[in-house]
């Protein structure tokens, strides 16, 4: 089925997620869609698969314009989507997952369904048993189930969203073989991914999105450099980084292994020294978040040792880490870092951990005013924290940091902030560095990573690179690493094997 997108626009508040995207995808094609986080890929796919409606623009299938109101609508038109976390029912059997939603009589014909299931599965050599429970399957197997279901439901367009995250190599090879077979049979396949190697291997054509627009298309043979440039943009002149002589070791990880819901990080060894900034780069879900949580004592490693300034800290609670001078700022500012309903001065009072019974209101307001002015927060001490803008909420999180700190861990510190706030935040962070704190931060903005880090650690599907000096990297080379290429060339000075 031929898919035509014309001038698709979608805005969420101030964010123009899709800014006039037009493309044509012929049948019997595997179309790759590349782009960094926030480029607009998932919004576009949500529109195509019926989760959201575009603000304007048209979708045409086989020459017929259509309006897709819901995911059920989409599948009835022939568009099926395989989500990164497949939307299945873990406590139920595979066959039930398969049958659920299919129209029919009161009693589903399980025997026919089983037969059809096994036939389809055999065609693609999926070793799935209809009577098994979905929560015993690996991610790769759950994908296989969902693919079978979508095919059975009459899909002629298959959208796959980051399908190779969390599946094994043999499963990936089987998936690719399946996709090639389907494409040969006339299926239109849209393959959304950030993994350059996969996209280059599998896709007949590639479209690259950046900041809501289509920045370019490519056909084989692919030039990685060009793809990366289209994804991340040109290199900008980096400002001179003040050279800091790193001091004592503040954080030390030896052989730390972490287990997350979808991936494993094995055997990371890393030291962070006071005064230095380490940037953690990688696409979302590559392991940086778990890693950062572990450094905060929020996630227990399955093996290995964590030490804070040579004090053993493995397995200790987050509050112990806090006592040792570690601070953790989550990305979801209002949902995880701040308490909606409480005022600014309430927050300062809480974080100071003052002893005593009655709150000294005067002192609290003084403290609040002092911090508000020194961090330039646009808000009064009595305002509730949810009334602040995103930028001011981030300043709030910074203002709540205690003094002194040895290690500051930030998850996407400048996400959603304007330039002015971003520069301000980094100014404050650099001050802390000068006072001796070490900083680890996660960011999806490669320019930011390269500009502010002394060293960069790249995450890809649970693999952790050794810390790389930022001067040795360019946007291009960093982009490649994030996309999974060029890892063979890295040295082996520790980090993750």
């Amino acid at each position: 089925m031929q898919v035509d997108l014309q001038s698709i626009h979608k805005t969420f508040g101030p964010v123009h997620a899709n800014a006039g995207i037009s493309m044509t995808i012929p049948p019997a094609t595997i179309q790759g869609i590349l782009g960094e986080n926030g480029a607009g890929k998932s919004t576009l796919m949500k529109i195509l698969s019926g989760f959201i409606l575009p603000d304007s623009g048209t979708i045409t299938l086989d020459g017929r314009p259509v309006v897709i109101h819901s995911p059920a609508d989409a599948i009835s038109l022939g568009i099926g989507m395989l989500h990164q976390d497949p939307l299945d029912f873990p406590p139920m059997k595979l066959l039930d997952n398969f049958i659920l939603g299919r129209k029919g009589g009161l009693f589903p014909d399980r025997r026919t369904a089983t037969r059809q299931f096994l036939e389809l599965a055999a065609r693609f050599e999926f070793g799935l048993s209809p009577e098994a429970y979905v929560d015993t399957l690996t991610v790769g197997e759950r994908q296989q189930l969902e693919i079978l279901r979508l095919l059975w439901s009459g899909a002629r367009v298959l959208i796959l969203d980051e399908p190779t995250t969390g599946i094994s190599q043999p499963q990936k090879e089987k998936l690719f073989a399946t996709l090639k077979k389907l494409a040969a049979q006339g299926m239109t396949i849209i393959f959304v991914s950030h993994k350059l190697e996969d996209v280059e291997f599998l896709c007949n054509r590639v479209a690259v999105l950046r900041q809501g627009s289509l920045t370019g298309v490519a056909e084989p043979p692919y030039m990685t450099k060009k793809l990366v440039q289209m994804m991340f943009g040109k290199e900008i002149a980096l400002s001179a980084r003040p050279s800091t002589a790193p001091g004592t070791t503040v954080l030390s990880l030896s052989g730390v292994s972490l287990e997350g819901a979808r991936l494993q990080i094995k055997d990371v060894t890393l030291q962070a020294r006071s005064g230095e900034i380490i940037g953690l780069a990688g696409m979302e879900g590559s392991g940086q978040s778990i890693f950062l949580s572990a450094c905060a004592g929020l996630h227990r490693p399955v093996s290995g040792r964590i030490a804070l300034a040579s004090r053993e800290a493995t397995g200790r609670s987050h509050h112990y880490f806090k006592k040792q001078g570690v601070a953790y700022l989550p990305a979801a500012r209002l949902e995880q870092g701040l308490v909606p309903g409480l005022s600014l001065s309430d927050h300062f009072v809480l974080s100071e951990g003052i002893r005593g019974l009655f709150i000294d209101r005067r002192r609290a307001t003084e403290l609040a005013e002092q911090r508000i002015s020194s961090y330039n927060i646009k808000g009064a001490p009595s305002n509730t924290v949810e009334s602040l803008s995103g930028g001011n909420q981030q300043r709030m999180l910074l203002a709540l940091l205690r003094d002194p700190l040895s290690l500051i861990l930030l998850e996407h510190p400048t996400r959603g902030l304007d330039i002015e706030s971003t520069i301000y935040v980094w100014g404050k962070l650099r001050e802390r560095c000068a006072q001796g704190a070490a900083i680890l931060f996660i960011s999806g903005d490669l320019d930011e990573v390269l500009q502010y880090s002394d060293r960069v650690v790249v995450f890809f599907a649970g693999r952790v690179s050794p810390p790389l000096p930022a001067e040795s990297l360019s946007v291009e080379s960093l982009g490649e690493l994030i996309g999974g290429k060029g890892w063979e060339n890295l040295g082996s000075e520790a980090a993750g094997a």
Partner: protein
Amino acid sequence: MPEARVSHALIQVGAVLLALLLTTLVLLASKAPPLAAYLNIVLGAVGSWEVIANVLVSWVPLLLATAGLLLTFTVGLWNIGIEGQITLGAIFTTWALRALQTSGMNPALIIALSFLAGIMGGALWAMLAGTLKTFGGVNEIFGGLGLNFVATALNLWLIFGPWKRPGVASMSGTVPFDHSLWLPTLTAQSRLSPSALLIAILSIVVVYSLIQGTYFGLRLKAVGKNPHAAFLLGVPTWQYMMASFALCGVFAGLAGAVQVTSVYHRLIPSISSGYGYLGLMVAMLVNFRASLAAPVALFFAALNVGSIQLPIVLKLDSSLAGVLQGTLVLFVLLAQGARQRVMKKAPRR
């Protein structure tokens, strides 16, 4: 934002009117004269000094229960087990009184010690519910309910078993205590004890200042509004939850102690009299704000006492009070939800 506050007030008034309307319909369905019923309730609550005193007597345990519940609600918990906590407070108080009544100690001291025992009983029972939740993974609603049933069973066993009246065990409870162990009342006839009144008022003041004015209260609020953020800010969340259970149990125990020493002067099967559940309703109606708890609790107590007239004068069941209270809370809840929905749909500035 003045317009938000006006709309808020309008919604509350609307809810009250709807509640009155529904209750009137219920009265009509019962072939009862609505105006006469309401009048009798009002007269039954403020018609004479005697009934006013009764309202205050009823106000005391309700206010105590509400005060305690405000603490558990602040931290985000549904302490349905409050009824059992009141009962255990009453049981412990009775036990202390029974143990000390022949000891020759100063009666005032005996009463004071029995209050202490009541506090321990309530706090213990509340912490049991807290432990079931924290370490047993049992939702505090069902844990509390289960413990309520256990408390009822325990109470019945004591009344009909070891503590029964000599001769025939009776539904009217244990042997009444000697007059010396009665909390002194306003007049010889009334059951209103100034000291109990004072305790209740002090309690709500204490709870109010705890929640609004102390670091402890601020941390409770943080845990209730966003446990994860509170944890990141350094608050030990499960400990604060347990503390709120324990404190609520203290107030529940006080309510039980008051019931035994100043109202019934013995242990009876329904010693908690539903004040726990009613306290939950009061807390919901005031949207968990301590400042309004006392007047609303007084209003609910007035409804309860006033409706005692209904069976006598109009041959109606006194549960009408409960109908009024229930519809009020229900419509306020629904109105709140409607308002939130309307505000979400309004264009954001």
